[in-house]
């Protein structure tokens, strides 16, 4: 069922199932990633791992607006997008374990989750590098006459990159069906937005390219879903690209660990008070459509799911070393 808006007077009784669905999705991501932290400490997972904790409402909300036929391009911070898009937790976990059962057969790791069956085109670890690709996916749809949307996620740090500018212009000029989802979590590693952009109103910046653009409270999954649905509707109808500035915050370090010398503890605390999961669960409880017991059940179901994902990953197999150079070029169909 589609949400009309995210106002406090929202009719949660009618939308109860959907609300719980959104909550579950966010908790899944949260618990999955909390487990990642443990597994990283245990060295079961290696490489760079970028957590989405705090930003769950963004991926979960946006994905609601997409159909299975739409496409998604994400960044290295893409566990949330992958899970919200429906990539099985076991495939994501196995990927980080470097197993054949991983979403990318263990060749990509945390930063390169792919699932073409779900039109999930990764997992790009070059800041800004996914944007042109998203424009191209959208161009293909335009040329093929398919009413599909390509959602492209990227951080606010990417806005300073030339590839951002070139792609925004190209998409607007050619009216390509791209939904640009800018995850403005205020920092690019240690660089605060105001030390990165001369003009920090990102939606305004996007609008200057001649596309629909507006800021959204990225800590409120309902607001995100509502905005994404509206934007996707326009994009799908041929209105050209749209841009959402999703205002959010990462609760954890940039990558698995960092000394966080670049932001104040109070600032983090302030944002934690707006935890998207608590925000929604509180609203559902306040509307009396969710009980603590139900929430506990959800949590325990998810804990099992995560356990299962880990168990599956650990039981996964390793690609034989002899196959190292597979997938450099396509294999002839057997």
């Amino acid at each position, binding site marked *: 069922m589609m949400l009309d808006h995210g106002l406090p007077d929202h009719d949660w009784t009618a939308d109860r199932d959907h609300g719980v669905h959104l909550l579950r999705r966010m908790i899944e991501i949260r618990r999955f990633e909390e487990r990642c932290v443990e597994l990283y400490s245990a060295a079961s997972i290696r490489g760079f791992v970028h957590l989405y904790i705090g930003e769950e409402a963004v991926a979960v909300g946006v994905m609601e607006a997409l159909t299975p036929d739409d496409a998604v391009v994400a960044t290295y911070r893409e566990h949330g997008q992958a899970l919200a898009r429906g990539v099985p937790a076991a495939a994501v976990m196995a990927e980080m374990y470097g197993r054949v059962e*991983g979403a990318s057969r263990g060749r*990509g790791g945390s930063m390169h989750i792919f699932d073409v069956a779900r039109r999930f085109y990764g997992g790009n670890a070059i800041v800004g590098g996914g944007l042109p690709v998203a424009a191209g996916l959208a161009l293909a749809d335009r040329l093929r006459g398919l009413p599909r949307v390509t959602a492209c996620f990227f951080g606010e740090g990417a806005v300073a990159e*030339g590839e951002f500018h070139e792609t925004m212009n190209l998409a607007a000029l050619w009216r390509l069906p791209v939904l640009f989802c800018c995850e403005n979590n205020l920092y690019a590693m240690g660089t605060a937005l105001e030390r990165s952009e001369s003009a920090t109103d990102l939606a305004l910046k996007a609008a200057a390219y001649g596309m629909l653009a507006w800021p959204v409270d990225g800590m409120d999954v309902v607001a995100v879903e509502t905005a994404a649905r509206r934007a996707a509707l326009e994009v799908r109808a041929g209105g050209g690209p749209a841009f959402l500035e999703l205002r959010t915050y990462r609760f954890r370090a940039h990558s698995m660990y960092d000394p966080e010398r670049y932001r104040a503890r109070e600032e983090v605390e302030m944002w934690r008070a707006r935890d998207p999961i608590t925000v929604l669960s509180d609203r559902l409880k306040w509307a009396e459509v969710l009980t603590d017991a139900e929430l506990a059940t959800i949590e325990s179901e998810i804990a099992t799911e995560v356990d299962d994902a880990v168990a599956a990953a650990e039981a996964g197999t390793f690609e034989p070393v002899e196959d190292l150079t597979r997938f450099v070029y396509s294999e002839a169909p057997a």
Partner: protein
Amino acid sequence: MRTTYREAMRAAIRDALARDDRVFLMGEDVGRYGGCFAVSLGLLEEFGPERVRDTPLSESAFVGAGIGAALGGMRPIVEIMTVNFSLLALDQIVNNAATLLHMSGGQCNVPLVIRMTTGAGRQLAAQHSHSLEGWYAHVPGLKVVAPATLEDARGMLWTALCDPDPVVIFEHGGLYNLEGDLADDAGPTPIEGAAVRRKGIDVTLVAYGGMVGKALEAAEVVAAEGIEAEVLDLRALRPLDTVAIVESVAATHRAVVIDEGWRTGGLSAEVAALIAEDAFYDLDAPVRRVCSAEVPIPYAKHLEDAALPQVADIAAAARLSVGVGGG
């Protein structure tokens, strides 16, 4: 049929556009202007602006868009005006086009063709005279070709478009006006494998792209002196046809590698290294390289000429290789 390299390339693009709906051409000034080297002249009128797309000056975005469009089911031909500007798109080519298949565990192949002009020789100075084929040939995940003949200008594109993976086509700027006969029914040619363009027994001249013609000229020069040089046109720069190279050198026992790129760390180095590795016991003389001087290419004609490999340089190297002419 009398034709030029430019026309052969145009015929190849037209043919591809006509044959396959998924094919489209995109790049700077490929449409209205007719292509900066007039390769795509008339194609906009024939196929319309959706399939012959003029792009803004945004090398990274339109190359990346080609990658995305390929993922999305199309068969894009992306033209980068020249290799010089391709540096601006190198991130997309190296970090996306070449890696997506592997990084995705085999899910995302990128059936993209990128065409670009390369080379010097027209007094365009340091920023417009690069020969960076060797860089592209270094990258696993790419295939790289350098058509040096009318047949290959006409034939490689279709084969490249049928390939499931990204193929980069280098067209030497000095070749566009090359004129000659081409069979009316000239068809696709392979994008792998070298070709012997002249048989010889005394020394192998290994060349590609714009240097093949010069190597053939040099072969004529030394032939007059009794040296029979074999000229091997690499055609494919990645993968290199190691077998053909080694076979030829095993027969001639001597090799000269000609490359318009700078010598140090250029493609010539790879060819020389692999000969020294795989044909070591066949070699009667060290491999010689004739490359561009280690200098940003200067504008003045006499300096540019001096910077680039010339027929006389190749002939001299061939002589030295067979032990004539000192050194």
